């Protein structure tokens, strides 16, 4: 067991975990932030996605030893009140069904819009197609991403 220091949702945290522990477990079990999900453990499904400096990263692929001193944002930290443009758009377009993959999808979309504020359909497909939704919410997700991009442009204007 080692003491690992990291920042989550702007709060400095210190956790006592095995060095190999994937970040997704630190978030879900140690810090009780269960918004980040565990769907496969091998970086394939995208439901463990969180943000680091605006970019989407897969927390099941980051061991504690590599997470130290870094700063991450989980779905709980995206906004205090579901007001982030991605969350707003997701609600407006009524995207979620079972909801389990959605935090990862929302944060993947945030990562996309951070890099490409006005993504083409091809860019949306490319960014989102490494994540899996078994309920099949993809068509509404695409609409929500375009809506979120528009909301972000309105904010800037």
């Amino acid at each position, binding site marked *: 067991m080692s003491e690992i220091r990291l920042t989550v949702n702007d709060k400095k945290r210190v956790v006592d975990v095995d060095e190999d522990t994937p970040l997704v477990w630190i978030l879900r079990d140690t810090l009780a932030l269960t918004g980040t999900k565990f769907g496969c453990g*091998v970086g394939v499904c995208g439901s463990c996605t969180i943000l680091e400096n605006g970019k989407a990263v897969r927390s099941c692929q980051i061991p504690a030893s590599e997470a130290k001193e870094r700063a991450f944002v989980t779905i709980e930290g995206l906004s205090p009140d579901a007001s982030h443009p991605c969350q707003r758009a997701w609600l407006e377009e009524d995207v979620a069904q079972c909801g*389990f993959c959605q935090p990862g999808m929302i944060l993947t979309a945030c990562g996309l819009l951070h890099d490409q504020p006005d993504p083409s359909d091809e860019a949306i497909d490319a960014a989102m197609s490494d994540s899996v939704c*078994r309920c099949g919410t993809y068509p509404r997700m695409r609409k929500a991403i375009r809506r979120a991009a528009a909301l972000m442009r309105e904010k800037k204007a």
Partner: protein
Amino acid sequence: MSATIGPARNRVDGRLKVTGAAKYSVEFEVPECAHGWTVESNIAKGRITAIDTKAAQGVPGVLAVLTHLNTPKFQAAPKKEERGGGGGIRNEERFPLNDDEVHYAGQYVALVVAKTIEQARQAGSLVRVSYAPEEPLLTMEAAEHKAQKPKTNHDEHVQIKKGDVEAALKDASLVKIEQTYITPTETHNPIEMSGTIAVWAGDKNLTLYDATQFVKGVQNIVAHAFGLELENVRIICPFVGGAFGCKGAVWMHVLLAAMGAKLAGVPVKVHVTRRNMFVGAGHRTPTRQTLSLAATRDGKLQAIQHLSETLTSTVGQFTESCGARSTGLMYESPAIRVEETVYPVNVSTPTFMRAPGECPGTYALECALDELSIALKMDPVALRLANHADNHPTKNVPFSAKHLKEAYQLGAEKFGWAKRNPEPRSMRDGDVLLGWGMATATYPAHKMSAAAKVQLRANNTATVQCATHDLGTGAYTAFTQISSEQIGLPFENITFELGKSDFPFGPVAGGSNSTGTVGTAIHAAAGLLHKALAELAVKDSKSPLYNLKTDDITMVAPGRIGLKTDSAKSDAYADILKRAGKESIEVQSEQKPPEENKKQAFQSWGAHFCEVKIDPLLPRVQVTRVVSVMNCGRVVSAKTARSQIMGGVVMGIGMALTEETSYDPGTGLPVTRNLADYHVPTNADVPEIEVAFVGEPDFAFNPIGARGMGEIGITGIAAAIANAVYHATGKRVRDLPITPDKLI
């Protein structure tokens, strides 16, 4: 009553889901919770000759290692006759760790309980199991001598004989098709893996947080297994992260979690790994279906023969009745024969997966019909219409509110089907081959029973409760809408609660039954509520309804009851309660066996039209357009309904083009055990899907007029895609998935 209930609503639980606040089974905080890790067999059949847990027990943090040698026997299971509707679902008819026998590869042979999951996993890897393997049966061919022909499946006859099929198939004047269609093992793979947290309070009280589609079923089975009083077993599951059928039965991990917690003396969480979702929570059996059709030259079917072969396990009887649920009811024909054969093999027990029976059955039948339409040089839609059945073709009662013809018409219009050139390889988009295909969709309307409790408060808000489930189906929203309409209060004033076995009875959220069943219970509870209010009002001298008969009183406007014959004589709920000095009143409807109507057949119908594009040089199929028109009775919640159909279509794209769980023919272990190898559709695979509803209410079915729509979306769509692929390429692929190698 309108075709939909109120305006189209966004999901009431949407905000919880976009903020990460919705809690799923293994996420509930339980102090001092330990972790359970399973050890699986790597042989498909045989006996455990030795099991050495010494090294495992030596790992720091390990609290217990359970094997068949040291685990107390589970006590009992509900009798088969008690099950299904109310008693719980057990696809695997055995208890875990009950003896030294191995029945399938992946069977749990030990459970390690440890303080952390890494300790449990480490210890699990140190458990040494020795086996005396036997030759397993793994294929239909190998199990030929054990073939079963079950008479019924869930009270439906599955061996069907109408007229003389053999004679028609010998008739030289008829146009004939005979083909065999194959579908592989498919695995549900909801993104939330199954999981259970078991918490004992003393040795007579047990709470499970369990990812389940049937809280009351888990409650009953677990109570029997441990010899507990039903009311001392509590199952909690407010949100399910997808199920599609795999969370309906009580699988071995649930019982292991509870037993592990009992023996270790601490709460235990067992989170089924993604690997074990391929062996420990069911799957759809592979199917081999041989269709024979005979028709006159003008397209009238004279015989349909559907020979369906599927697998089950040696420790559980599961029947995927492909023929009975498609050919048995879809088209008019003087001769119909369905034969269902099930082979028990050494694999983990299959279970319901979205539209069990209908899904693979419609794939085979709708492809065969497409092949017939080509042989007849007849438009595929025209062929369906020529054989349209107003009456159930084998039960000989009329279908209630079928409206399938409207679905074909509306779908064809929206899709632009009239522009189709029927010649294969005749349509292109630049260099890319274009194909248009269609198929009929169908799913039965199942009726089960439920009860609902309503608490109405003096501030005109109400809480409604039922032990039903939201798997992403939109139940919270649909039931809030139904409650609002039936009780007579604004949508915003209703709180609908589900997912607890303490609530009044709710059946399995399966068979697309929930909206109709629970909706009917809400309707009954609302009636009782209005009666209770009436009883208060008629005794109250200050009420306009004083001294009137309660039988003459009903809800006359939102928030008001009044005289049926003169709605101006009315009283407000809030006033009635306040004057009676009551903060609230509570009523509960009775769970009664559902009213069966044998005079009609209740079935939902629809049509899929789809477009595929295929680059002739790299024959990967891209589905580029889908139009699906359904008639499922009244659409309660427009947005969630559309999502359900779209979800079914997306899953059908996977079935048609990418999904397959493969097994090692030697060991019987699945070799596909993660989401990198099992290809579920992703964003890039899915086009815009246009969904429309004919929406004619079916009040003969229930007072809500709704028939349910969770599964119909996946029926027929794989055939529509396969038919479109043929239209584009001239190549008929008869085994799914249609991967590029099959089109070269």
